[in-house]
């Protein structure tokens, strides 16, 4: 659907593996069609490059939605994973984090994650909700201003919204205009006249 990942430069990945004797490769077939293309061949090429460096490969697998299925995927693969020095995960940042959370082994990321251009304005799936603990969706037409606005403004739009686009890029829709249009459609513009107070960021436990 929305998150896409692209392999990091090979040198960077090999750097991560420098002190590993063996590795298991796990590739996510993703939530996006883009991620499913060339899954097998990408994995094969990466495996060969790693072998060339004298690192043994205990096995590899392609599985879908590592982000939400990490636990069951690892259980299912227990035997084929064996006992490698590490697991190299070709997935988005969330997939990597979910695998890392579900295993005691060292987990290396093999990819960088990006937002699919077609849905740039709305933010990527995981980022649409910050689990901030102080939800304002009631006042903003079910669209989160913290994630959809480039500045995370609670009382937007700022003066930079022009032609329905955000000031930072003509490719990005102004989040507050999306909110405005939704509220207009819902006949709830009056609600947008109310003032939203500063957020309590204590509840929003972003791990930094």
């Amino acid at each position: 659907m929305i998150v896409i990942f692209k392999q990091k430069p090979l040198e960077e990945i090999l750097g991560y593996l420098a002190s590993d004797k063996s590795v298991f490769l796990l590739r996510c077939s993703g939530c996006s069609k883009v991620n499913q293309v060339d899954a097998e061949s990408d994995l094969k090429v990466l495996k060969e490059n790693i072998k060339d460096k004298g690192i043994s490969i205990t096995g590899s697998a392609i599985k879908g939605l590592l982000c939400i299925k990490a636990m069951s995927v690892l259980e299912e693969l227990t035997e084929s994973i064996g006992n490698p020095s590490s697991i190299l995960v070709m997935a988005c940042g969330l997939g990597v984090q979910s695998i890392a959370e579900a295993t005691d082994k060292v987990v290396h990321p093999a990819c960088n994650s990006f937002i699919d251009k077609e849905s740039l304005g709305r933010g990527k799936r995981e980022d649409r909700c910050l689990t901030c603990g102080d939800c304002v969706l009631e006042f903003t037409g079910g669209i989160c201003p913290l994630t959809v606005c480039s500045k995370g403004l609670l009382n937007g739009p700022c003066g930079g919204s022009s032609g329905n686009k955000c000031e930072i890029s003509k490719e990005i829709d102004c989040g507050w205009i999306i909110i405005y249009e939704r509220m207009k459609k819902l006949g709830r513009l009056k609600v947008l006249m109310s003032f939203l107070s500063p957020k309590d960021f204590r509840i929003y436990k972003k791990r930094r």
Partner: protein
Amino acid sequence: MKSGSNLEKVLEGGYFAVTAEVGPPKGALSTVIKRKGELLKFHCDAMNVTDNQTAIVRMSSWSGCILLKEMGIDPVMQMVVRDRNRIAIQSDILGAVALGIRNILCLSGDHQKFGNHPTAKGVYDIDSIQLIQTLKTMRDDRKFMCGEDLSGELPIYIGAVENPFADPFEYRVHRLAKKVKAGADFIQTQAVFDVKKFSKWMDMVRDHGLDKQVHILAGIIPIKSVGMARYMRDNVSGISVPDEIVIRMEEAKDAKEEGVKIAIEIIEQLKEIEGIHGIHIMAVAWEDIVPLIVERAGLLPRPIL
């Protein structure tokens, strides 16, 4: 009087106010600010010092304000919410007032991506409207955002900005109403080139009775060249430059003189709009022209109050 600033006296006294913008240097040379201060001193009632405008690092607004203050000029400190969280904001306000700054203009700030540090993390702990409310609470209730008391008085005149040319057009007036309700005493608008659209916005402002609750100063940017006119029309989001202005600049023999003429014509039209209480001149990198424009627009001498 809320602050006793010169700007407040001029506006509350019913005079047509003139403010000008001073861009601080990309360095620590106080002479840059002082030169601009000398140049504009007798041609405006207060001077805004921008706060890392377009997210380019420059001398801080408060220090520029102090340099102007020392010259007997009433400064307007601009404060964006892009670079400070609520702790730094409130602390800086206390410091600014302690040093004699009385006018504070609240803005969101251009996104960090625009500037010379596009890799920076934006703060945006609070937004510009929440900043206005914070200042009002600090001044009127003598309380910090957290509810704790602050000691002593906090005499400030609270400013905000509005861009009638941003989208959605029909919502801008409601956002202005939010700012007024939050505590804005005066408004400085984005530069006006499209007077027709601006008048339409002012009609809505009056329909909501906002002109009676806040002083609105219309923004003016003198155009120096054809290139500048085209650049603003095509590349600056939130500024609306009608084609006829670009054409006038293209056809002019003396582009600078034409730019001055256009600015003066716009000022003349703005003066006629009910509810406009002044102008704010943002002569980006062309501060030298401001005295001439103010003089030719018949706005001299400035009141001494």
